[in-house]
């Protein structure tokens, strides 16, 4: 290892992968694979080498199986994908997960140099989208996608183009409303200043003029910007719910009515500035609360997991791409290596080795024999197979599972946020004080009573209160976002703080598929490898399977005798040799205590001659050790769809009684329900479709993924696998954030009490209201954002 460090690192010119051992050279540049070299040669031929000038190693590795885009020739599929098409040109938007740097933007916006038929291409970096307009006579959609794929930017095309839909769906008028509110607020402030500074007697005519103008500016505020609050307060009242929108709506209404009355009767200048400022700040708070992740979707379902089309073998011979929705029972479909089986089907030809890890949680591919039914959702590994569809996609096992009532149920059991709870009491107390001062002053003066009543509603309008949660939580959200933990909305932070039980899925969640590493200790000749490989092919034990995968290009020699001692090892007679593979105790007769719990050793002996051992690093996610640290304060369960053969290894991490294996998706959901019925606040962490129901049922469902652009089941939050080890910190930080909210509530209540002491006397001057409202708002905004950042610094999240 030391020698390697001294040598200059050899990195692929295109993708930056380490390629010391094997590499290909072209133009004195080093490439890790043929794919990377091909991209380079395409680019260099077209004079696009600037691509490599903006960033070092801008590409992503091309060392992966090719995807086929034949289905893009089908007119019905093309129609669904394009944004616009006429007889001259087509406009299409692709989602390209590989977009990550300025080189990507530069290259994708110079597609025209590679294919002159592309008139125009424009990248939206945050959404990872590229908008392309091309001449549909000179090239086709298929051609454009192949070009993108050739240069390393394979678009992700799926049935349910969620990301695109999200971008279209989020258009509402909030920004416009803020613009109008800001416009009115600014003008009203300008016109209110003379009043505060004092207008001399002979300029009284201005006062009336300013008053009317202010009233005019209030109209759009109440009738356009503030309508949401009135509507929400009204629906909540109808449903007999008291929330913060009621005092807000009352505040806006009272401010407006009192301004109107004072201006029309020439009795005062009204509260136009407070009214506009209130609505403006509230809308800004709403805007801040709404966090959009352009590249994520929390609502994905099976449709974005399935391919767009599948190859159908025609009766007359030949293949044709058919959109999934048009697949009929009885059709023969061709599934290649790494493709997903879209419908329940019978295996007709080829060796079926189907990886169901995503659907059931089983980590080992299942062997399917001819004539056996293969359920939808499995991924074929190995050779191409032919299947006959027995059920249409919409009625397949997986689809039915997804559409199961329990899975689609709306969540009404979610926890109430702190502000929801407080605002109920706040509203009651506020109304009590308002009516109390009304009735107190009524015997003395009808006018003073009304003035006190309205003053209370104005001054206690919970603007700062309504802003404290959005500002704190959105600050927390962006801090977590920087740490690769993406929450769906601000309420999730509070839920995170309340969790007391954690349920983890195994396959894909705490283990990584294909992430294990094997190191060989001792000298093993190629022939001996053949022997071990052949012995292991007989065994179904996961470790044997791993060894077979590791030495997959060895020759298989016929086994003449075979014996397996469960939990210890295997003995096989091959080519006249006795091969023993198994635990240290099995091979050597005695064993030293295992020093590293995260690796397993497989020892080898051939004909009484000890060869050496393979140490297999458990393919657990980095940072799974945190589970141990969390054990003290949380109840942690393991809920797996897989068989229990890893029970021993996992018992180092989990409490033995809290591990459950071979659970179906429905059982997982029921398990969460059972925990909840015992009053537990359950967080579920999972990755596959088999966890989807449990994720929905839990109080907080987190989908874990290695690549946030990949498919993940619908959830409240998406956690990047790299950040799993930070989970305890996230918990602490969420609690810090809720504490900040409590603090800001106290501050805003203090302001309210100060204001109320003026208001109940009925002598509220507009000046005090105009100072108090923005002052409290600014205090809250600065307090929450500073306190949240301080908390994040303390937890080393910034």
């Amino acid at each position, binding site marked *: 290892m030391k020698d390697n460090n001294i040598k200059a690192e050899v990195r692929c010119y295109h993708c930056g992968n380490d390629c010391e051992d094997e590499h290909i050279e072209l133009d004195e540049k080093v490439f890790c694979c043929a794919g990377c070299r091909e991209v380079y040669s395409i680019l260099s031929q077209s*004079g696009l080498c*600037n691509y490599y000038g903006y960033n070092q190693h801008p590409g992503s590795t091309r060392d992966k199986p090719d995807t086929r885009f034949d289905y893009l020739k089908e007119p019905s599929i093309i129609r669904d994908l394009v944004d616009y098409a006429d007889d001259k040109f087509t406009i299409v938007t692709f989602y390209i997960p590989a977009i990550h740097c*300025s080189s990507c933007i530069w290259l994708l*916006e110079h597609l025209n140099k590679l294919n002159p038929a592309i008139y125009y291409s424009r*990248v939206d*970096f*945050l959404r990872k989208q590229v908008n392309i307009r091309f001449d549909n006579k000179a090239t086709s959609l298929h051609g454009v996608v192949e070009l993108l794929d050739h240069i390393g930017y394979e678009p992700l095309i799926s049935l349910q183009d969620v990301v695109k839909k999200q971008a279209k769906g989020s258009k509402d008028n909030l920004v416009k409303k803020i613009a*109008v509110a800001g*416009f009115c607020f600014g003008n009203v402030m300008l016109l209110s200043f003379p009043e505060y500074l004092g207008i001399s007697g002979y300029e009284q005519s201005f006062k009336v*003029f300013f008053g009317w103008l202010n009233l005019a500016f209030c109209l759009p505020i109440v009738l356009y910007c503030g309508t949401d609050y009135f509507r929400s307060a009204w629906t909540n009242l109808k449903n007999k719910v008291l929330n913060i929108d009621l005092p807000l709506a009352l505040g806006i209404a009272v401010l407006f009515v009192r301004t109107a009355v004072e201006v029309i009767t020439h009795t005062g200048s009204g509260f136009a500035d407070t009214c506009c400022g209130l609505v403006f700040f509230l809308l800004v708070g709403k805007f801040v609360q709404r966090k959009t992740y352009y590249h994520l979707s929390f609502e994905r379902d099976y449709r974005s997991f399935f391919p767009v089309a599948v190859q159908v073998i025609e009766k007359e011979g030949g293949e044709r791409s058919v959109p999934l929705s048009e697949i009929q029972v009885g059709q023969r479909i061709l599934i290649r290596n790494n493709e997903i089986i879209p419908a329940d089907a019978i295996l007709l030809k080829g060796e079926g080795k189907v990886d169901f890890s995503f659907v059931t949680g089983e980590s080992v591919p299942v062997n399917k024999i001819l004539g056996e039914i293969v359920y939808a959702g499995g991924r074929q590994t190995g050779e191409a197979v032919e299947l006959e569809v027995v059920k249409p996609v919409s009625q397949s096992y997986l689809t039915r599972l997804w559409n199961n009532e329990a899975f689609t149920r709306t969540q009404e059991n979610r926890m109430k946020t702190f502000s929801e709870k407080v605002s109920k009491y706040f509203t009651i107390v506020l109304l009590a004080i308002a009516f109390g001062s009304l009735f107190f002053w009524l015997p003395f003066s009808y006018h003073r009573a009304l003035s006190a009543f309205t003053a209370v509603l104005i001054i206690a309008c919970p603007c700062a209160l309504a802003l404290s949660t959005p500002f704190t939580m959105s600050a927390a959200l962006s801090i977590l976002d920087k740490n690769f933990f993406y929450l769906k909305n601000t309420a999730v932070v509070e839920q995170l703080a309340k969790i007391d039980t954690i349920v983890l899925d195994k396959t894909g969640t705490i283990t990584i598929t294909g992430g294990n590493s094997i190191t060989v200790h001792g000298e093993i000749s190629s022939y001996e490898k053949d022997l071990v490989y052949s012995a292991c092919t007989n065994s179904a034990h996961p470790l044997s399977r791993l060894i077979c995968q590791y030495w997959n290009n060895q020759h298989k020699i016929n086994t003449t005798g075979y014996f397996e001692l469960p939990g210890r090892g295997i003995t096989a007679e091959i080519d006249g040799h006795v091969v023993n593979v198994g635990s240290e105790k099995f091979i050597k007769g005695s064993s030293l205590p295992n020093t590293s719990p995260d690796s397993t050793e497989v020892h080898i002996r051939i004909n009484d001659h000890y060869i050496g051992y393979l140490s297999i690093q458990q393919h657990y996610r980095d940072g799974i050790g945190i589970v141990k640290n969390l054990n003290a304060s949380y109840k942690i369960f393991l809920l797996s769809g897989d068989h229990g053969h890893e029970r021993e290894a996992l018992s180092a991490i989990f409490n033995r009684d809290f591990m459950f294996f071979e659970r179906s998706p429905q059982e997982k959901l029921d398990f969460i329900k059972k925990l909840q019925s015992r009053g537990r606040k359950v967080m579920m962490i999972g990755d596959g479709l088999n966890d989807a129901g449990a994720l929905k049922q839990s109080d907080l469902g987190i989908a874990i993924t290695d690549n946030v652009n990949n498919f993940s089941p619908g959830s409240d939050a998406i956690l990047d696998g790299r950040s799993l080890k930070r989970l305890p910190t996230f918990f602490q930080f969420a609690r810090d954030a809720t504490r900040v909210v409590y603090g800001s509530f106290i501050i805003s209540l203090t302001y309210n009490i100060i204001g109320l002491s003026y208001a109940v006397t009925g002598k509220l001057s507009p000046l005090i209201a105009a100072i108090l409202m923005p002052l409290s708002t600014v205090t809250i905004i600065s307090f929450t954002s500073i306190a949240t950042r301080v908390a994040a610094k303390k937890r080393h999240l910034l």
Partner: protein
Amino acid sequence: MSIIYFLIGCSVILALIFLGAFFWAQRNGQHDDLYTPSIRILLDDEPKDEEEK
């Protein structure tokens, strides 16, 4: 001092024009992508003639 009526009228009309401009930009999609242009401006155009390089 009646000039104030005129001045305020002017300022309000001017502000309305700006508000209108904002609405137009919003509808035109100018605020859809607020990030990419900041990178795009840093990317050089190709020299028009390769030989001149």
